[in-house]
């Protein structure tokens, strides 16, 4: 069980950083979103449910990225978020990234959470604050579109 901020950080900071980098597509924005996510987690400690720290962090991170984008553009939705492939992931992820860019509203974050970050549906739903059925549906639709785009 995670009992300290340090354990939370050491267990999850890499994937959270990778996640916000993929959503923001910009290093400085990702850097800020990562910091804001963990500061919010420390301030909001303890997690609402023990053992679900990961989903909790994804939810905070998703909201932080949306907040940042909203502040910059007044109004955005998930679909407006940029999505970049980290350079070192190579060509296939870059192709995937451009395919993901075709995804409509609501499906992009769901796709990244499930297919790129590997969260289970309970955690995807938790991160997006929607039902598991809705999460499944978004991921399924997104996956279909990404497959078509990558053909």
């Amino acid at each position, binding site marked *: 069980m995670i*009992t*300290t*901020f*340090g*354990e939370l*950080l*050491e267990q999850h*900071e*890499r994937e959270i*950083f*990778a996640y916000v980098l993929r959503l923001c597509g910009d*290093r400085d924005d*990702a*850097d800020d979103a*990562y*910091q804001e996510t*963990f*500061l919010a987690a*420390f*301030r909001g*400690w*303890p997690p609402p449910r023990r053992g679900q720290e990961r989903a909790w962090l994804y939810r905070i991170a998703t909201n932080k990225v949306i907040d940042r984008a909203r502040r910059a553009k007044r109004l955005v939705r998930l679909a407006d978020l940029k999505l970049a492939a*980290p350079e*070192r992931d190579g060509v296939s992820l870059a192709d995937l990234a451009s395919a993901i860019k075709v995804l409509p509203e609501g499906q992009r974050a769901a796709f990244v959470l499930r297919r790129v970050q590997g969260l289970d549906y309970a955690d995807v739903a938790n991160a997006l604050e929607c039902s598991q059925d809705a999460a499944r549906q978004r991921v399924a639709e997104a996956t279909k579109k990404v497959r078509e785009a990558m053909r």
Partner: protein
Amino acid sequence: MNDLMTDARERLMARARREGLETVGYSVIDSPLGPLWIAVGPKGVVGIHYGAEPSAGELGRIVRAYGPGVLPDARRADPVARELDQYFAGKRKRFDVAVDLSPLTDFQRRILSATARVAFGDVSTYAKVAARAGSEKAMRAAGQALGSNPIPIVVPCHRVLASDGTLGGYSGGLDAKRTLLAFERGSVPPGGWPNRPSS
């Protein structure tokens, strides 16, 4: 990706410190005895643990005393890390960093304070440390208090031996105790130092 993370993490730690979200900062250093996990709280060193990670029990003790704000922070751990480096390089015989024994029981505090007065190169016994702490008959309890010393090396419980001069016990393992004693006063003779502890 790694450099990127390091920078981001440093900035995060600085902000956490400024906001008072960090109560204890920790770091892992290399030593001749292997990695040491060191933790520094608001009033000084709160823990030194043999190994790169603290045990669940050790961490639980720190969280109970200082809350969950236990964060990696090499800067905070630097002063004690520096003194440990100097000690292992043979350039320091006494530690100057403050230690925080406040979460311990009064008895543990007295035993560890008595232990802290055993100088580099000297050894003592569980009975003598117990007597110094004002509980002459409590040598078994003294042994237990030393066995759970949260700040080994800096609070030199390795200098406390059984009354017959044999090594007794050590949280970091008897090899570590032997190494520290050999380093401070030459090789440990087979069978220990028979009854000539100097303090």
